[in-house]
Protein backbone atom coordinates (compact mmCIF):
# COMPACT_ATOMS: atom_id res chain seq x y z
CA UNK A 1 0.00 0.00 0.00
CA UNK A 2 1.21 3.51 -0.70
CA UNK A 3 0.39 7.21 -0.68
CA UNK A 4 0.76 8.69 -4.17
CA UNK A 5 1.96 12.28 -3.87
CA UNK A 6 0.18 14.51 -6.41
CA UNK A 7 1.52 17.74 -4.87
CA UNK A 8 4.30 17.71 -2.26
CA UNK A 9 3.33 20.80 -0.24
CA UNK A 10 5.87 23.38 0.93
CA UNK A 11 8.12 21.02 2.91
CA UNK A 12 6.62 17.65 3.81
CA UNK A 13 8.97 15.18 5.47
CA UNK A 14 8.78 11.74 7.02
CA UNK A 15 9.39 11.96 10.79
CA UNK A 16 9.23 9.67 13.81
CA UNK A 17 10.51 9.84 17.40
CA UNK A 18 13.99 10.69 16.15
CA UNK A 19 17.45 9.32 15.59
CA UNK A 20 18.94 9.13 19.03
CA UNK A 21 22.61 8.48 19.80
CA UNK A 22 24.44 9.90 16.77
CA UNK A 23 24.75 13.49 17.91
CA UNK A 24 28.45 12.93 18.59
CA UNK A 25 28.92 12.55 14.82
CA UNK A 26 26.99 15.71 14.02
CA UNK A 27 23.83 13.81 13.07
CA UNK A 28 20.87 15.56 14.73
CA UNK A 29 18.11 13.79 16.60
CA UNK A 30 15.44 14.83 14.08
CA UNK A 31 11.92 13.50 14.60
CA UNK A 32 8.53 15.21 14.52
CA UNK A 33 8.98 18.80 15.66
CA UNK A 34 5.79 18.63 17.76
CA UNK A 35 6.14 15.15 19.24
CA UNK A 36 2.90 15.26 21.21
CA UNK A 37 0.74 16.16 18.20
CA UNK A 38 2.36 13.41 16.11
CA UNK A 39 1.79 10.97 18.94
CA UNK A 40 -1.94 11.82 19.07
CA UNK A 41 -2.16 10.96 15.36
CA UNK A 42 -0.53 7.59 15.89
CA UNK A 43 -2.89 6.88 18.80
CA UNK A 44 -5.97 7.64 16.67
CA UNK A 45 -4.98 5.36 13.79
CA UNK A 46 -4.09 2.39 16.02
CA UNK A 47 -0.29 2.60 15.77
CA UNK A 48 2.37 2.51 18.44
CA UNK A 49 4.08 5.83 19.27
CA UNK A 50 7.04 4.75 17.12
CA UNK A 51 5.42 4.73 13.66
CA UNK A 52 6.55 7.41 11.20
CA UNK A 53 4.15 10.18 10.10
CA UNK A 54 4.18 12.93 7.49
CA UNK A 55 5.09 16.33 8.90
CA UNK A 56 3.57 19.15 6.81
CA UNK A 57 4.78 22.76 6.83
CA UNK A 58 2.17 25.52 6.26
CA UNK A 59 1.05 24.17 2.86
CA UNK A 60 0.26 20.46 2.90
CA UNK A 61 0.53 17.79 0.21
CA UNK A 62 -2.19 16.38 -2.03
CA UNK A 63 -2.25 12.62 -1.50
CA UNK A 64 -4.14 9.71 -3.09
CA UNK A 65 -4.18 6.43 -1.19
CA UNK A 66 -3.78 3.26 -3.28
CA UNK A 67 -5.77 1.17 -0.76
CA UNK A 68 -8.24 1.66 2.08
CA UNK A 69 -6.47 3.48 4.91
CA UNK A 70 -7.09 4.73 8.45
CA UNK A 71 -5.61 8.21 8.86
CA UNK A 72 -5.71 11.20 11.22
CA UNK A 73 -4.54 14.80 10.93
CA UNK A 74 -3.22 16.43 14.12
CA UNK A 75 -1.06 19.41 15.04
CA UNK A 76 -1.57 22.94 13.75
CA UNK A 77 -5.19 23.91 12.88
CA UNK A 78 -5.83 23.57 9.13
CA UNK A 79 -8.74 22.82 6.80
CA UNK A 80 -8.70 19.16 5.77
CA UNK A 81 -10.56 17.71 2.79
CA UNK A 82 -11.23 14.16 1.62
CA UNK A 83 -12.39 14.27 -2.02
CA UNK A 84 -13.09 17.98 -1.46
CA UNK A 85 -15.42 17.29 1.51
CA UNK A 86 -14.31 18.98 4.75
CA UNK A 87 -13.36 16.55 7.53
CA UNK A 88 -12.26 17.06 11.14
CA UNK A 89 -8.79 17.11 12.66
CA UNK A 90 -7.98 15.02 15.76
CA UNK A 91 -10.39 12.31 14.55
CA UNK A 92 -9.93 8.84 13.11
CA UNK A 93 -10.72 8.98 9.36
CA UNK A 94 -11.44 6.00 7.12
CA UNK A 95 -10.22 6.46 3.54
CA UNK A 96 -11.23 4.24 0.63
CA UNK A 97 -8.79 3.25 -2.11
CA UNK A 98 -8.51 6.18 -4.55
CA UNK A 99 -9.57 8.83 -2.03
CA UNK A 100 -7.76 12.14 -2.22
CA UNK A 101 -6.56 13.89 0.96
CA UNK A 102 -5.66 17.56 0.70
CA UNK A 103 -5.35 20.63 2.90
CA UNK A 104 -6.56 24.22 2.93
CA UNK A 105 -5.29 27.24 4.77
CA UNK A 106 -3.30 26.85 8.01
CA UNK A 107 -4.84 28.86 10.89
CA UNK A 108 -2.06 28.78 13.44
CA UNK A 109 1.31 27.21 14.12
CA UNK A 110 3.56 25.81 11.39
CA UNK A 111 3.38 22.03 11.47
CA UNK A 112 0.58 19.49 11.13
CA UNK A 113 0.87 15.75 10.88
CA UNK A 114 -0.68 12.98 8.82
CA UNK A 115 -0.64 9.63 10.62
CA UNK A 116 -1.69 6.42 8.88
CA UNK A 117 -2.33 2.97 10.31
CA UNK A 118 0.86 0.99 9.63
CA UNK A 119 2.98 4.13 9.55
CA UNK A 120 5.07 5.56 6.72
CA UNK A 121 7.29 2.60 5.89
CA UNK A 122 10.47 4.03 4.37
CA UNK A 123 13.70 2.20 5.33
CA UNK A 124 15.21 2.95 8.72
CA UNK A 125 18.60 4.65 8.69
CA UNK A 126 20.56 4.54 11.97
CA UNK A 127 17.44 3.36 13.76
CA UNK A 128 15.02 6.00 12.47
CA UNK A 129 12.91 6.91 9.45
CA UNK A 130 13.22 10.66 10.14
CA UNK A 131 14.34 12.76 7.18
CA UNK A 132 17.66 14.59 7.57
CA UNK A 133 17.91 16.54 4.30
CA UNK A 134 21.37 18.04 4.92
CA UNK A 135 22.88 14.58 5.34
CA UNK A 136 20.52 13.08 2.74
CA UNK A 137 19.45 10.23 5.03
CA UNK A 138 16.07 8.90 6.16
CA UNK A 139 12.64 9.69 4.71
CA UNK A 140 12.12 9.35 0.97
CA UNK A 141 15.65 9.30 -0.50
CA UNK A 142 16.85 11.64 2.25
CA UNK A 143 14.71 14.58 1.15
CA UNK A 144 11.31 16.24 1.46
CA UNK A 145 8.46 14.75 -0.59
CA UNK A 146 8.29 15.53 -4.32
CA UNK A 147 5.39 15.26 -6.77
CA UNK A 148 5.22 11.76 -8.20
CA UNK A 149 6.64 10.05 -5.07
CA UNK A 150 4.98 6.83 -4.03
CA UNK A 151 5.35 6.70 -0.25
CA UNK A 152 5.09 3.18 1.20
CA UNK A 153 2.69 2.54 4.10
CA UNK A 154 3.42 -0.36 6.46
CA UNK A 155 1.31 -3.12 7.96
CA UNK A 156 -0.96 -2.62 10.97
CA UNK A 157 1.35 -2.89 14.02
CA UNK A 158 -1.56 -4.32 16.04
CA UNK A 159 -2.29 -2.10 19.02
CA UNK A 160 -3.75 -3.66 22.21
CA UNK A 161 -5.41 -0.37 23.13
CA UNK A 162 -9.11 0.28 22.55
CA UNK A 163 -9.96 2.17 19.34
CA UNK A 164 -9.99 5.92 19.92
CA UNK A 165 -12.22 7.84 17.50
CA UNK A 166 -11.45 11.38 18.62
CA UNK A 167 -9.07 13.23 20.92
CA UNK A 168 -10.89 14.95 23.79
CA UNK A 169 -10.74 18.75 23.72
CA UNK A 170 -8.75 18.85 26.95
CA UNK A 171 -6.04 16.66 25.41
CA UNK A 172 -5.61 18.74 22.25
CA UNK A 173 -2.60 21.08 22.15
CA UNK A 174 -3.08 24.85 21.99
CA UNK A 175 -1.69 27.13 19.28
CA UNK A 176 -1.44 30.47 21.04
CA UNK A 177 0.09 33.63 19.58
CA UNK A 178 1.33 34.61 23.03
CA UNK A 179 3.46 32.07 24.90
CA UNK A 180 5.72 31.68 27.90
CA UNK A 181 8.56 29.28 27.16
CA UNK A 182 10.32 27.82 30.19
CA UNK A 183 14.11 27.77 29.99
CA UNK A 184 16.96 26.83 32.27
CA UNK A 185 19.68 29.48 32.36
CA UNK A 186 23.19 28.14 32.04
CA UNK A 187 25.96 27.25 29.58
CA UNK A 188 27.34 30.75 28.86
CA UNK A 189 24.75 32.99 30.56
CA UNK A 190 27.60 34.43 32.67
CA UNK A 191 28.92 36.13 29.50
CA UNK A 192 25.83 38.36 29.41
CA UNK A 193 25.98 41.66 31.28
CA UNK A 194 23.37 42.21 34.04
CA UNK A 195 21.44 44.35 31.58
CA UNK A 196 21.77 41.68 28.91
CA UNK A 197 20.33 38.98 31.15
CA UNK A 198 17.54 41.29 32.25
CA UNK A 199 16.73 42.07 28.62
CA UNK A 200 16.68 38.39 27.70
CA UNK A 201 14.30 37.40 30.50
CA UNK A 202 12.09 40.48 30.74
CA UNK A 203 11.52 41.43 27.12
CA UNK A 204 8.84 40.30 24.74
CA UNK A 205 10.39 38.50 21.75
CA UNK A 206 8.57 38.03 18.47
CA UNK A 207 9.11 34.90 16.40
CA UNK A 208 10.38 35.87 12.93
CA UNK A 209 9.59 33.95 9.71
CA UNK A 210 13.11 32.48 10.00
CA UNK A 211 11.76 29.46 11.85
CA UNK A 212 12.22 25.88 10.73
CA UNK A 213 13.30 22.44 11.91
CA UNK A 214 16.84 23.69 12.54
CA UNK A 215 16.04 26.72 14.61
CA UNK A 216 13.69 29.59 15.36
CA UNK A 217 14.87 33.18 15.32
CA UNK A 218 13.28 35.91 17.48
CA UNK A 219 13.21 39.67 17.16
CA UNK A 220 13.38 41.98 20.15
CA UNK A 221 15.53 44.56 21.89
CA UNK A 222 18.76 42.50 21.74
CA UNK A 223 21.06 41.75 24.65
CA UNK A 224 24.36 43.12 25.89
CA UNK A 225 27.43 40.95 26.46
CA UNK A 226 30.10 41.57 29.06
CA UNK A 227 33.26 43.17 27.72
CA UNK A 228 36.06 40.64 27.94
CA UNK A 229 39.24 39.55 26.27
CA UNK A 230 38.26 36.70 23.98
CA UNK A 231 39.91 33.33 24.79
CA UNK A 232 42.35 31.81 22.27
CA UNK A 233 40.58 30.23 19.31
CA UNK A 234 37.15 31.71 20.05
CA UNK A 235 36.82 34.52 17.53
CA UNK A 236 36.51 38.27 18.06
CA UNK A 237 32.83 38.86 18.82
CA UNK A 238 31.81 38.65 22.51
CA UNK A 239 29.08 36.19 21.47
CA UNK A 240 31.78 33.80 20.14
CA UNK A 241 33.14 30.81 22.08
CA UNK A 242 35.62 28.07 21.17
CA UNK A 243 33.37 25.83 19.06
CA UNK A 244 31.45 23.54 21.39
CA UNK A 245 28.53 21.13 21.39
CA UNK A 246 25.06 22.68 21.27
CA UNK A 247 22.35 21.33 23.58
CA UNK A 248 19.10 20.68 21.68
CA UNK A 249 16.81 23.55 22.67
CA UNK A 250 19.68 25.83 23.58
CA UNK A 251 19.38 29.54 22.83
CA UNK A 252 22.23 31.43 21.18
CA UNK A 253 22.28 35.15 20.44
CA UNK A 254 24.85 35.79 17.66
CA UNK A 255 26.08 39.35 17.85
CA UNK A 256 23.63 39.97 20.73
CA UNK A 257 20.77 40.73 18.34
CA UNK A 258 18.32 37.88 17.66
CA UNK A 259 18.00 34.85 19.96
CA UNK A 260 17.85 31.53 18.08
CA UNK A 261 16.26 28.46 19.69
CA UNK A 262 17.90 25.37 18.22
CA UNK A 263 15.36 22.68 17.38
CA UNK A 264 15.47 19.01 16.37
CA UNK A 265 17.46 19.32 13.10
CA UNK A 266 19.91 21.94 14.41
CA UNK A 267 23.64 21.82 13.88
CA UNK A 268 25.24 19.86 16.73
CA UNK A 269 27.85 22.43 17.59
CA UNK A 270 29.45 25.72 16.73
CA UNK A 271 31.01 28.89 18.02
CA UNK A 272 28.13 30.94 19.42
CA UNK A 273 27.55 31.26 23.14
CA UNK A 274 24.33 29.70 24.43
CA UNK A 275 22.70 31.41 27.41
CA UNK A 276 19.78 29.11 28.25
CA UNK A 277 18.03 25.94 27.11
CA UNK A 278 14.32 25.32 26.55
CA UNK A 279 13.25 22.58 28.97
CA UNK A 280 12.42 19.25 27.33
CA UNK A 281 8.69 19.50 28.01
CA UNK A 282 8.42 22.91 26.25
CA UNK A 283 10.17 21.92 22.99
CA UNK A 284 6.78 21.03 21.46
CA UNK A 285 5.37 24.40 22.56
CA UNK A 286 8.14 26.19 20.64
CA UNK A 287 7.36 24.04 17.58
CA UNK A 288 3.69 25.11 17.72
CA UNK A 289 4.44 28.83 17.38
CA UNK A 290 3.74 30.69 14.15
CA UNK A 291 5.86 33.65 13.06
CA UNK A 292 4.61 36.73 14.90
CA UNK A 293 4.06 34.81 18.17
CA UNK A 294 4.88 36.94 21.23
CA UNK A 295 7.28 34.96 23.37
CA UNK A 296 8.65 35.38 26.87
CA UNK A 297 11.51 33.21 28.13
CA UNK A 298 10.86 32.27 31.76
CA UNK A 299 13.75 30.94 33.85
CA UNK A 300 13.03 27.79 35.87
CA UNK A 301 15.17 25.49 38.04
CA UNK A 302 16.16 21.89 37.26
CA UNK A 303 13.54 20.72 39.78
CA UNK A 304 10.81 22.73 38.06
CA UNK A 305 11.95 21.38 34.68
CA UNK A 306 11.73 17.82 35.98
CA UNK A 307 8.25 18.42 37.42
CA UNK A 308 7.11 19.77 34.04
CA UNK A 309 8.65 16.71 32.40
CA UNK A 310 6.65 14.47 34.74
CA UNK A 311 3.43 16.32 33.83
CA UNK A 312 4.15 15.71 30.12
CA UNK A 313 4.91 12.05 30.76
CA UNK A 314 1.62 11.64 32.67
CA UNK A 315 -0.29 13.15 29.76
CA UNK A 316 1.34 10.69 27.33
CA UNK A 317 0.56 7.81 29.71
CA UNK A 318 -3.12 8.81 29.82
CA UNK A 319 -3.37 8.92 26.01
CA UNK A 320 -1.54 5.63 25.59
CA UNK A 321 -3.59 3.61 28.09
Amino acid sequence: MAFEILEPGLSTTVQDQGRIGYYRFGIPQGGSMDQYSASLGNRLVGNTPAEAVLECTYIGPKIVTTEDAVVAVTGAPVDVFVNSVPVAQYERLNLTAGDELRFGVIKGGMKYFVAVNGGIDVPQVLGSRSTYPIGAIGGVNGRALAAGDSVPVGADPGSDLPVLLSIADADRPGFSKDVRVRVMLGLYDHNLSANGLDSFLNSEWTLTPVADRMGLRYQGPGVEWKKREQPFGAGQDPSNIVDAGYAVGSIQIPGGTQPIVLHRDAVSGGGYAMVATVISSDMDLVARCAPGTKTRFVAVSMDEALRARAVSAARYARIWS
Partner: protein
Amino acid sequence: MTLSTEARYTWGGDEFLFVEIAEGMSLESNFISNSIANALDSQQLTGIIDICPANASLLIRFNPDQLVSGDLERTVRALEREVRGAASQVLETRIVEIPIWYNDPYTNETGARFREGYHQRPEGNDLDYAAEVNGLADAAEFIQRHHESPWLVSMVGFVAGLPFLYQLVDRDRQLEVPKYLSPRTDTPALTLGYGGCFSCIYSVRGAGGYQMFGVAAAPIFDPAQSLADFKEFMVFFKPGDIVKFTPVDETEYRRIQSEVDAKTFKYRQAPIQFDVGAALADPDGYKESLLEALNGI
Protein backbone atom coordinates in the same frame (compact mmCIF):
# COMPACT_ATOMS: atom_id res chain seq x y z
CA MET B 1 49.18 18.83 32.71
CA THR B 2 49.57 22.57 32.70
CA LEU B 3 45.86 23.23 33.28
CA SER B 4 45.42 23.03 37.01
CA THR B 5 41.95 24.47 37.38
CA GLU B 6 38.76 22.44 37.47
CA ALA B 7 36.32 22.27 34.61
CA ARG B 8 33.09 24.30 34.73
CA TYR B 9 29.89 22.22 35.02
CA THR B 10 26.61 23.62 33.80
CA TRP B 11 23.25 22.34 32.50
CA GLY B 12 21.74 22.62 29.04
CA GLY B 13 18.15 22.15 30.17
CA ASP B 14 17.06 18.94 31.89
CA GLU B 15 18.76 16.59 29.38
CA PHE B 16 22.27 17.98 28.81
CA LEU B 17 25.33 18.33 31.05
CA PHE B 18 27.94 20.72 29.63
CA VAL B 19 31.51 20.52 30.91
CA GLU B 20 33.83 23.34 29.88
CA ILE B 21 37.41 22.18 30.38
CA ALA B 22 38.81 25.62 29.55
CA GLU B 23 37.57 28.79 27.83
CA GLY B 24 40.48 28.80 25.39
CA MET B 25 41.59 26.11 22.98
CA SER B 26 44.62 23.98 23.78
CA LEU B 27 45.81 20.48 23.09
CA GLU B 28 45.59 19.68 26.82
CA SER B 29 41.94 20.76 27.10
CA ASN B 30 41.04 18.71 24.08
CA PHE B 31 42.85 15.66 25.45
CA ILE B 32 41.04 15.96 28.80
CA SER B 33 37.67 16.30 27.07
CA ASN B 34 38.23 13.26 24.88
CA SER B 35 39.64 11.20 27.74
CA ILE B 36 36.63 11.92 29.97
CA ALA B 37 34.35 11.05 27.05
CA ASN B 38 36.10 7.72 26.47
CA ALA B 39 36.13 6.85 30.17
CA LEU B 40 32.44 7.69 30.55
CA ASP B 41 31.59 5.72 27.41
CA SER B 42 33.34 2.63 28.77
CA GLN B 43 31.22 2.76 31.96
CA GLN B 44 28.09 2.07 29.87
CA LEU B 45 25.90 3.92 32.39
CA THR B 46 22.15 3.46 32.01
CA GLY B 47 20.56 6.75 30.99
CA ILE B 48 23.51 8.12 28.97
CA ILE B 49 22.25 8.91 25.46
CA ASP B 50 25.14 10.68 23.77
CA ILE B 51 28.65 11.74 24.71
CA CYS B 52 29.93 14.55 22.49
CA PRO B 53 33.52 15.62 23.13
CA ALA B 54 34.29 19.03 21.61
CA ASN B 55 37.37 21.22 21.24
CA ALA B 56 37.71 22.34 24.85
CA SER B 57 34.43 21.09 26.30
CA LEU B 58 32.16 18.08 26.53
CA LEU B 59 28.41 17.78 26.03
CA ILE B 60 26.60 14.81 27.55
CA ARG B 61 22.97 13.99 26.82
CA PHE B 62 21.18 11.92 29.41
CA ASN B 63 17.69 10.74 30.25
CA PRO B 64 16.83 12.30 33.63
CA ASP B 65 14.15 9.64 34.18
CA GLN B 66 16.90 7.01 34.28
CA LEU B 67 19.91 8.91 35.57
CA VAL B 68 19.71 11.59 38.27
CA SER B 69 21.55 14.75 37.17
CA GLY B 70 23.51 15.00 40.42
CA ASP B 71 24.72 11.41 40.09
CA LEU B 72 25.89 12.07 36.54
CA GLU B 73 27.78 15.18 37.62
CA ARG B 74 29.48 13.30 40.46
CA THR B 75 30.51 10.52 38.06
CA VAL B 76 31.96 12.92 35.50
CA ARG B 77 33.77 14.95 38.17
CA ALA B 78 35.41 11.74 39.43
CA LEU B 79 36.49 10.86 35.89
CA GLU B 80 37.85 14.38 35.42
CA ARG B 81 40.04 13.99 38.52
CA GLU B 82 41.26 10.61 37.25
CA VAL B 83 42.10 11.97 33.80
CA ARG B 84 43.91 15.01 35.20
CA GLY B 85 45.89 12.83 37.57
CA ALA B 86 46.90 10.23 35.00
CA ALA B 87 50.62 9.95 34.35
CA SER B 88 50.25 8.78 30.78
CA GLN B 89 48.63 10.89 28.11
CA VAL B 90 48.78 8.52 25.18
CA LEU B 91 45.98 8.11 22.71
CA GLU B 92 45.68 5.00 20.53
CA THR B 93 44.66 6.49 17.21
CA ARG B 94 45.58 6.69 13.52
CA ILE B 95 47.16 9.12 11.09
CA VAL B 96 45.33 9.73 7.82
CA GLU B 97 46.47 11.47 4.63
CA ILE B 98 43.85 13.85 3.21
CA PRO B 99 44.55 15.08 -0.34
CA ILE B 100 43.55 18.74 -0.80
CA TRP B 101 43.39 20.80 -3.96
CA TYR B 102 44.29 24.19 -2.44
CA ASN B 103 43.19 27.39 -4.18
CA ASP B 104 40.74 25.45 -6.36
CA PRO B 105 38.18 27.04 -8.72
CA TYR B 106 35.10 25.69 -6.87
CA THR B 107 35.66 27.42 -3.54
CA ASN B 108 37.05 30.51 -5.28
CA GLU B 109 33.88 30.80 -7.35
CA THR B 110 31.70 30.45 -4.24
CA GLY B 111 33.88 32.92 -2.33
CA ALA B 112 33.51 35.47 -5.13
CA ARG B 113 29.71 35.25 -4.82
CA PHE B 114 29.82 36.11 -1.08
CA ARG B 115 31.99 39.21 -0.85
CA GLU B 116 30.20 42.50 -0.18
CA GLY B 117 28.57 42.36 3.26
CA TYR B 118 29.98 38.88 3.95
CA HIS B 119 33.74 39.23 3.83
CA GLN B 120 36.30 41.45 5.56
CA ARG B 121 38.29 41.96 2.35
CA PRO B 122 36.33 42.29 -0.89
CA GLU B 123 39.43 42.11 -3.15
CA GLY B 124 41.41 38.88 -3.57
CA ASN B 125 40.29 35.51 -2.24
CA ASP B 126 40.11 33.95 1.23
CA LEU B 127 43.69 32.63 1.03
CA ASP B 128 45.06 36.08 0.20
CA TYR B 129 43.19 37.46 3.21
CA ALA B 130 44.43 34.66 5.50
CA ALA B 131 48.03 35.24 4.43
CA GLU B 132 47.68 38.97 5.08
CA VAL B 133 46.16 38.71 8.59
CA ASN B 134 48.87 36.22 9.58
CA GLY B 135 51.65 38.46 8.26
CA LEU B 136 52.76 35.96 5.62
CA ALA B 137 54.20 36.83 2.20
CA ASP B 138 51.45 35.31 0.09
CA ALA B 139 48.85 32.56 -0.29
CA ALA B 140 51.57 30.05 -1.22
CA GLU B 141 53.28 30.54 2.16
CA PHE B 142 49.98 30.13 3.98
CA ILE B 143 49.29 26.89 2.09
CA GLN B 144 52.79 25.64 2.95
CA ARG B 145 52.23 26.39 6.65
CA HIS B 146 48.82 24.76 6.51
CA HIS B 147 49.99 21.36 5.28
CA GLU B 148 53.57 21.09 6.59
CA SER B 149 52.48 20.18 10.12
CA PRO B 150 49.80 17.60 10.99
CA TRP B 151 46.44 18.31 12.61
CA LEU B 152 44.38 16.71 15.37
CA VAL B 153 40.65 16.10 14.87
CA SER B 154 39.52 17.96 18.00
CA MET B 155 35.75 17.62 17.46
CA VAL B 156 33.23 16.10 15.06
CA GLY B 157 29.94 17.90 14.56
CA PHE B 158 28.07 20.93 13.23
CA VAL B 159 26.68 18.77 10.41
CA ALA B 160 27.05 15.03 9.78
CA GLY B 161 30.67 13.97 10.00
CA LEU B 162 32.30 17.41 9.85
CA PRO B 163 35.73 17.40 11.56
CA PHE B 164 37.20 20.39 13.38
CA LEU B 165 41.01 20.23 13.30
CA TYR B 166 43.68 21.82 15.47
CA GLN B 167 47.22 22.12 14.17
CA LEU B 168 49.98 20.42 16.17
CA VAL B 169 52.36 23.37 16.38
CA ASP B 170 53.44 25.76 19.14
CA ARG B 171 50.93 28.41 20.14
CA ASP B 172 53.04 31.13 18.48
CA ARG B 173 52.99 29.18 15.20
CA GLN B 174 49.19 28.78 15.20
CA LEU B 175 47.46 30.35 12.23
CA GLU B 176 44.35 32.34 13.20
CA VAL B 177 41.80 33.63 10.70
CA PRO B 178 38.51 35.40 11.47
CA LYS B 179 35.29 33.79 10.29
CA TYR B 180 33.21 35.49 7.59
CA LEU B 181 31.45 38.63 8.89
CA SER B 182 28.14 36.95 8.11
CA PRO B 183 27.71 33.24 7.25
CA ARG B 184 27.42 32.23 3.58
CA THR B 185 24.27 30.39 2.52
CA ASP B 186 26.40 28.10 0.35
CA THR B 187 29.65 26.16 0.73
CA PRO B 188 30.74 23.45 -1.73
CA ALA B 189 30.84 19.92 -0.30
CA LEU B 190 34.35 18.95 0.92
CA THR B 191 35.51 22.55 1.25
CA LEU B 192 38.56 22.98 3.46
CA GLY B 193 37.44 25.70 5.86
CA TYR B 194 39.20 27.87 8.46
CA GLY B 195 37.83 29.89 11.36
CA GLY B 196 39.55 31.05 14.55
CA CYS B 197 42.40 28.55 15.05
CA PHE B 198 40.45 25.64 13.52
CA SER B 199 40.38 24.01 10.14
CA CYS B 200 37.37 21.99 9.09
CA ILE B 201 36.22 19.97 6.13
CA TYR B 202 32.61 20.62 5.17
CA SER B 203 31.23 17.09 4.83
CA VAL B 204 28.18 18.23 2.85
CA ARG B 205 27.14 21.30 0.87
CA GLY B 206 25.43 24.02 2.90
CA ALA B 207 25.74 27.17 4.97
CA GLY B 208 29.07 28.05 6.54
CA GLY B 209 31.05 30.89 8.06
CA TYR B 210 34.64 29.61 7.79
CA GLN B 211 37.09 30.96 5.21
CA MET B 212 37.51 28.64 2.20
CA PHE B 213 41.00 27.49 1.17
CA GLY B 214 40.55 24.42 -1.01
CA VAL B 215 38.62 21.25 -1.59
CA ALA B 216 39.25 17.68 -0.42
CA ALA B 217 39.45 15.13 -3.24
CA ALA B 218 37.59 12.25 -1.55
CA PRO B 219 34.42 12.06 0.55
CA ILE B 220 34.45 12.07 4.35
CA PHE B 221 30.70 11.30 4.73
CA ASP B 222 29.23 8.46 2.69
CA PRO B 223 25.60 7.71 3.64
CA ALA B 224 25.44 4.95 0.99
CA GLN B 225 28.59 3.40 2.54
CA SER B 226 29.88 2.49 -0.92
CA LEU B 227 33.61 3.07 -0.24
CA ALA B 228 35.75 0.60 1.73
CA ASP B 229 36.62 3.16 4.42
CA PHE B 230 32.91 3.54 5.21
CA LYS B 231 31.98 -0.15 5.52
CA GLU B 232 31.55 0.16 9.29
CA PHE B 233 30.00 3.63 9.47
CA MET B 234 28.97 6.46 7.17
CA VAL B 235 31.16 9.01 9.02
CA PHE B 236 34.94 8.80 8.45
CA PHE B 237 36.46 10.94 11.20
CA LYS B 238 36.64 10.37 14.94
CA PRO B 239 37.94 12.78 17.58
CA GLY B 240 41.62 12.01 18.13
CA ASP B 241 42.40 11.21 14.48
CA ILE B 242 45.64 12.80 13.24
CA VAL B 243 45.46 14.30 9.76
CA LYS B 244 48.23 15.05 7.27
CA PHE B 245 46.96 17.35 4.52
CA THR B 246 48.71 16.70 1.21
CA PRO B 247 48.45 19.25 -1.58
CA VAL B 248 47.39 17.84 -4.95
CA ASP B 249 47.05 19.51 -8.36
CA GLU B 250 44.04 19.26 -10.66
CA THR B 251 45.36 16.13 -12.43
CA GLU B 252 45.82 14.25 -9.17
CA TYR B 253 42.46 15.55 -7.88
CA ARG B 254 40.71 14.16 -11.01
CA ARG B 255 42.57 10.85 -10.68
CA ILE B 256 41.40 10.46 -7.06
CA GLN B 257 37.85 11.38 -8.09
CA SER B 258 37.86 8.65 -10.74
CA GLU B 259 38.93 6.17 -8.04
CA VAL B 260 36.06 7.41 -5.87
CA ASP B 261 33.63 6.96 -8.79
CA ALA B 262 34.97 3.44 -9.36
CA LYS B 263 34.57 2.81 -5.60
CA THR B 264 38.23 1.72 -5.38
CA PHE B 265 39.49 4.73 -3.39
CA LYS B 266 40.99 4.10 0.03
CA TYR B 267 42.57 6.64 2.36
CA ARG B 268 46.26 6.15 3.22
CA GLN B 269 46.29 5.65 6.97
CA ALA B 270 48.31 3.97 9.71
CA PRO B 271 47.66 3.22 13.39
CA ILE B 272 49.73 5.33 15.80
CA GLN B 273 50.05 6.17 19.45
CA PHE B 274 49.70 9.90 20.00
CA ASP B 275 51.66 11.09 23.03
CA VAL B 276 50.33 14.50 24.11
CA GLY B 277 53.31 15.24 26.37
CA ALA B 278 55.80 14.53 23.60
CA ALA B 279 53.78 16.57 21.10
CA LEU B 280 53.74 19.56 23.45
CA ALA B 281 57.42 19.30 24.43
CA ASP B 282 58.82 19.17 20.90
CA PRO B 283 56.17 19.75 18.21
CA ASP B 284 58.66 19.80 15.31
CA GLY B 285 60.52 16.66 16.31
CA TYR B 286 57.31 14.84 17.17
CA LYS B 287 55.79 15.82 13.83
CA GLU B 288 58.49 13.86 11.99
CA SER B 289 57.80 10.69 13.97
CA LEU B 290 54.06 11.00 13.24
CA LEU B 291 54.65 11.45 9.51
CA GLU B 292 57.02 8.46 9.41
CA ALA B 293 54.09 6.22 10.20
CA LEU B 294 52.54 7.18 6.85
CA ASN B 295 55.71 6.70 4.84
CA GLY B 296 55.59 2.93 5.01
CA ILE B 297 52.06 2.76 3.52
